């Protein structure tokens, strides 16, 4: 058997949500929530029709405003009026701000790598693989191009899948 009360959060643990909504009775709370919902629906209509109008008129700023600006307003209204974040303890606000800050940090940290298409000596292909636009220093040994002979791939074809023998080995074999 648990010893906790039936409805904690409804006595002295309560948020004080009622005060924040400008009414102390359940009925006025409900009317307030329905009003907020109605405003959210109107904002949804704005974010639905706004981009259509913006596309027809070619107004890019209107598209961004009605799509993303309205989304931010809707999110704020839900967080404030339905989640009651405005009357929560400061630690809750701190936690949420930290989460959003981590998002911004993630964006800032990886944006240069993803959004920059090229640099002084490199560029990215469609698959985001880097390719170098200037010649890299050659390493001696296996990375040297194989000499023309039986191991050399014909022009226009890819190199064989098996490892290429070292240049000296290849030369020795052709001497016999």
């Amino acid at each position, binding site marked *: *058997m*648990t*010893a*906790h*009360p*039936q*409805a*904690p*959060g*409804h006595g002295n*643990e*309560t948020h004080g*949500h*009622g005060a924040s909504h400008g009414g102390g009775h*359940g009925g006025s*709370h*409900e009317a307030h*929530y*329905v009003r*907020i*919902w109605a405003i*959210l*629906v109107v904002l*949804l209509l704005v*974010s*639905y029709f706004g*981009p259509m109008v913006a596309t027809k008129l070619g107004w890019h700023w209107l*598209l961004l405003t009605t*799509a*993303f600006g309205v*989304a931010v307003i*809707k*999110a704020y209204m*839900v*967080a404030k*009026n*339905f*989640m009651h974040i405005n009357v*929560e*303890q400061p*630690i*809750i606000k701190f*936690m*949420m701000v*930290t*989460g*959003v800050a*981590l*998002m911004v940090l*993630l*964006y800032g940290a*990886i*944006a240069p790598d*993803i*959004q920059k*298409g090229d640099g002084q000596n490199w560029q990215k292909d469609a698959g985001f693989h880097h390719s170098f636009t200037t010649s890299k220093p050659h390493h001696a040994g296996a990375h040297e191009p194989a000499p023309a002979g039986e191991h050399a791939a014909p022009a226009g074809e890819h190199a064989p899948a098996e490892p290429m023998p070292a240049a000296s080995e290849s030369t020795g074999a052709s001497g016999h």
Partner: protein
Amino acid sequence: MSTKTIATQRAAMNMPTGRLAIWWVLMSEIVIFGGILVSYVLHRLAHPEWAEQAAYTNVHLGATNTLVLLSSSLSAVLAHAAAERGDGKRAAFLLRLTILGGLIFLIIKSFEWTHEIHEGFTLQSGGFWSYYYTAAGVHAFHVIAGMCIMAWVASTAAKNQELHRVENVGIYWHFVDLVWIFLFPLLYIAK
């Protein structure tokens, strides 16, 4: 019968333990969804050609689903108001209404996905579709989880027990709604 004492209040935070826990969950959810949304925005900006693929998403169904989730959020917060009055039966009814909203959302989503998959747009059809199915899929998973938890909370609320859980599950549900508020313009409107 042994009595087990459970700490229901965090003195340092001056708030109920359950509510603090749900906010911690939401913070981790911000990191999960934030990671998906931020990387989507980055790649979307780097790939203007994704607009052609995004043009195939159904904005009407996306808007309908937004309306459904906003309405389900209303019933969730009304359930919270009923719980604060100690009206467990009404809170349970409103929570079940919220579950119905989640169900309608999933049905619309399944129709949408079925059509898109029949058209040949799958998870592997390109970068945009990978993000589309991943983001909407992870969100739909959260809707399903919320519905299951809400069904359990409604069953206890109907007996006028553990009414504080109504608010906690409501906060979670509003967050799921909030994520969709951003997914809608990102996946359906930005074309």
